[in-house]
């Protein structure tokens, strides 16, 4: 694929993340931190996020298997996970976290489990899409334009 076409493709891919509500403003903040000293900063942060948060996901999974459910503990884990997800701009994942916490407060185990399944789905989708995006960005190399494409 010709260089310019690749860049256009990547640009549209990135735009779709915002249009579909997968990512929010915070992701742009990360992009703005990327510089010559840290040219892969965003990818590094996202990789770190997925590596670290998998631990919390496991903790939540194990906690959801307990009977009775410890809603306090679950809420605590989710607070951590939400904070992490917020920091990379994972909008949909963050929304599921908020929903989960509401169910915790209401003591609704069913709701928690349902929401958690949805959360894992969104989490995995985002991971796949971002991995694809970073890989293609690296293949395409640096783009001609000096400034980053803005959200809108």
């Amino acid at each position, binding site marked *: 694929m010709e260089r310019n076409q690749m860049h256009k493709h990547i640009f549209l891919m990135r735009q779709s993340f915002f249009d579909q509500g997968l990512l929010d403003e*915070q992701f742009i*903040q*990360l992009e*703005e*931190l990327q510089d010559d000293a*840290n040219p892969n*900063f965003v990818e*590094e*942060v996202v990789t*770190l*996020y997925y590596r*670290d*948060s998998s631990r919390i996901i496991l903790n939540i999974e194990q906690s959801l298997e307990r009977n009775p459910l410890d809603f306090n503990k679950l809420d*605590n884990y989710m*607070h*951590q996970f*939400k*904070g*992490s997800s*917020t*920091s*990379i*701009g994972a909008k949909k994942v963050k929304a599921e976290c908020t929903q989960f916490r509401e169910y915790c407060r209401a003591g609704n185990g069913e709701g928690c489990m349902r929401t958690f399944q949805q959360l894992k789905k969104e989490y995995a989708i985002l991971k796949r899409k971002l991995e694809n995006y970073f890989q293609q960005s690296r293949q395409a190399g640096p783009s001609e334009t000096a400034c980053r494409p803005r959200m809108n």
Partner: protein
Amino acid sequence: MIPSNGKGSMSMASSSAAWKAGDVVPDQFPAGLRVLLVDDDPTCLVILEKMLRACLYEVTKCNGAEIALSLLRENKNGFDIVISDVHMPDMDGFKLLEYIELEMDLPVILMSADGEKNVVMKGVTHGACDYLIKPVRMEALKNIWQHVVRKRRNEWRELEQSAIIRSCRAKY
């Protein structure tokens, strides 16, 4: 007098070097502001460190309150300001704030993804000089140096006032 060193860091080393109105602030200020960053979330820690470095601050990061306290104790005058998350497993931000106020009297900024008023209120009543809601924006970090200046100015005011009281007492 602000001592200079090769690193170009802002060294407000001695507590008697409180600023007076009209003092000349070194040109590079607030660059080199020495920040201690405390957050147990590795992702947040990396992002915040990068943001603070982008503000030209000198950042030391750690992932827990206990480590933060030992760093502060080992290096009594090594930091200008502390930024800490509230929810941490070993010790929460409020407790850390209490220790710092007691032992080092540095300005402390608390942060949390939790923006609920009662939690923010708790932070402020505990003595946090600011409470930032995550995700923290660059704009918020660019202004944190004001807390350092404000605290120094208040210290100077207190020193001045106690000097006045002493001199009044000396007269009578």
